[in-house]
């Protein structure tokens, strides 16, 4: 039976490229697939493009480190690192390949996910752009929208592979699409082979967060995971019938066991029986998972259903500013000191007439990651940091608030430390999701190929 080996190269913008290099060197893979875009990454990239229209794609060391080794081993790279400007990313990779002398390298650029220029037109045509989560009307955010991108599926990437592309760069896609595309292309799957497409989506989902299926961010007995400093990214061997084995390169750290794979299987999933993607609705409650030797998990019997008629569009809008400040106190009575500091600050805000859309306080070392679920009263802690975070309409107010904290070092409870370096205000981005008719997106999808001379 025909099969193909596919490796994971990146789980987010900022991920380590070293395990990706390991996959290319010793993973015995034909494809290296990357997911560079978290939900909010486009907001950051949009700001970069506002400053420089040539930017707006993910700029990191990935291509600098991986392009040459992949070229030498004829490993094809698929990535959504194009962000909000896939054409710009294509030009940058082209320039890099030219400098490296990678003659004949074909770079495919896929555009068409960007719906920002067409929102007005879609609304006029009667497309309901209400938020899927809160149901609100789009007019409430219309003048603050920063980006609007539809999630594309694997089809354009398969077209790119058919056209001989060595590197495929896209913008917003469903996260597992980069992984599904080479399976469809290599194994000859049809676009209505729901069970096999669904198997490809599950494997993509298991690989899109890099080491999260091989022992990273593992909530079980993480202390037993070997050699995390050189953890391996996942590699899948997939057969024509959709059955697969998830593994990792020989000699790398981490684990591929049932429990690490299961944790990733439900990661960021809602209904496991209906995982909706542009290409298929996958049923994660259908497959059988079993350990098949060390660091090998076999996945069989995956089922899926017909793809949805509408595609999700993710819209980001400016939603005020975050101002934050931190001041730390030591034993004895660290918690009491921090609480006193909060009381003083609140009184000072009141007497200055400072109000905020929202204000929260957290005690770092006590409840900043657990909120009301924190245990005990924190009386015996060695140190406590008081963090104050406010939501404001404008940047200046967010920048002003933290300046009230440093004087506490001299005017408040003893041992105040670390109130000097105040974080800068950060713009807050609201996310809005709507569904649009598939054909409205698909009609604007374009594939361009650049060949390095």
């Amino acid at each position: 039976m025909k099969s193909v080996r596919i490796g994971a190269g990146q789980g987010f913008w900022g991920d380590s490229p070293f395990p990706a290099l390991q996959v290319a060197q010793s993973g015995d893979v034909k494809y290296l697939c990357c997911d560079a875009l978290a939900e909010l990454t486009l907001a950051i990239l949009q700001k970069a493009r506002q400053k420089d229209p040539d930017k707006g794609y993910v700029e990191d060391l990935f291509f600098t480190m991986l392009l040459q080794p992949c070229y030498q081993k004829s490993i094809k790279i698929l990535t959504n690192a194009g962000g909000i400007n896939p054409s710009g990313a294509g030009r940058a990779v082209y320039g890099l390949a030219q400098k490296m002398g990678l003659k004949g390298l074909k770079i495919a650029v896929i555009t068409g996910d960007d719906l920002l220029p067409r929102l007005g037109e879609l609304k006029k045509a009667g497309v309901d752009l209400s938020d899927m989560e809160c149901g609100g009307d789009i007019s409430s955010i219309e003048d603050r929208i920063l980006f609007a991108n539809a999630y594309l599926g694997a089809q354009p990437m398969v077209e790119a592979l058919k056209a001989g592309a060595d590197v495929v760069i896209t913008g917003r896609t469903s996260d597992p699409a980069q992984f599904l595309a080479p399976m469809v292309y290599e194994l000859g799957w049809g676009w209505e082979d729901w069970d096999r497409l669904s198997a490809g989506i599950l494997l993509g989902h298991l690989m899109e967060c890099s080491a999260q299926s091989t022992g990273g961010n593992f909530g079980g007995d993480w202390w037993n995971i070997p050699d995390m400093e050189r953890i391996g990214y996942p590699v899948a061997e997939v057969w024509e019938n959709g059955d697969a084995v998830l593994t990792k390169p020989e000699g790398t750290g981490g684990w591929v066991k049932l429990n690490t794979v299961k944790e990733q299987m439900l990661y960021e999933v809602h209904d496991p029986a209906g995982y909706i993607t542009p290409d298929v609705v996958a049923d994660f409650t259908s497959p059988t998972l079993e350990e098949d030797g060390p660091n090998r998990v076999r996945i069989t019997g995956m089922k899926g259903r017909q793809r949805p008629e509408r595609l999700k569009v993710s819209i980001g809008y400016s939603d005020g500013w975050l101002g934050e400040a931190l001041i730390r106190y030591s034993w004895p009575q660290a918690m009491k000191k921090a609480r006193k500091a909060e009381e003083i600050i609140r009184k000072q805000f009141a007497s200055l007439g400072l109000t905020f859309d929202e204000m929260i306080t957290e005690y770092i070392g006590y409840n900043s990651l657990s909120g009301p679920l924190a245990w005990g009263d924190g009386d015996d802690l060695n140190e406590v940091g008081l963090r104050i975070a406010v939501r404001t309409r404008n940047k200046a107010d967010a920048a002003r608030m933290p300046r009230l904290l440093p004087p506490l070092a001299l005017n408040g409870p003893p041992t105040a430390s670390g109130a000097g370096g105040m974080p800068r205000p950060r713009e807050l981005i609201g996310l809005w999701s709507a569904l649009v008719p598939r054909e409205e997106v698909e009609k604007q999808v374009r594939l361009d190929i650049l060949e390095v001379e």
Partner: protein
Amino acid sequence: MTRVLLADFAHARSGDKGNSVNIGLFPYRDEDYYLIREKITAERVKEHFAGLVEGEVVRYEAPNIKAFNFVLRGALNGGASRSLRSDNLGKCFGANLLRMPVQID
């Protein structure tokens, strides 16, 4: 009746999507799947997260991998990129669920 913590017999991982958090919950031993099904209901999880989660909690079952998935709506102070919280991505919700006390016969 013995009182234990959910952490004693299960592990968990959480993640974000919009203003929702999901928590995958996995018993260390397959047979404890039924214990979780009986004890860790959506209502109990909603109660457990009072003050952190504003919306409804839905529980999904994945018997093929002996796991449960909890979806907590209105859990992220508006969502990762507009949250004021330190844990803006909801990474610690799984660990926080494991603090839940469970009565075992």
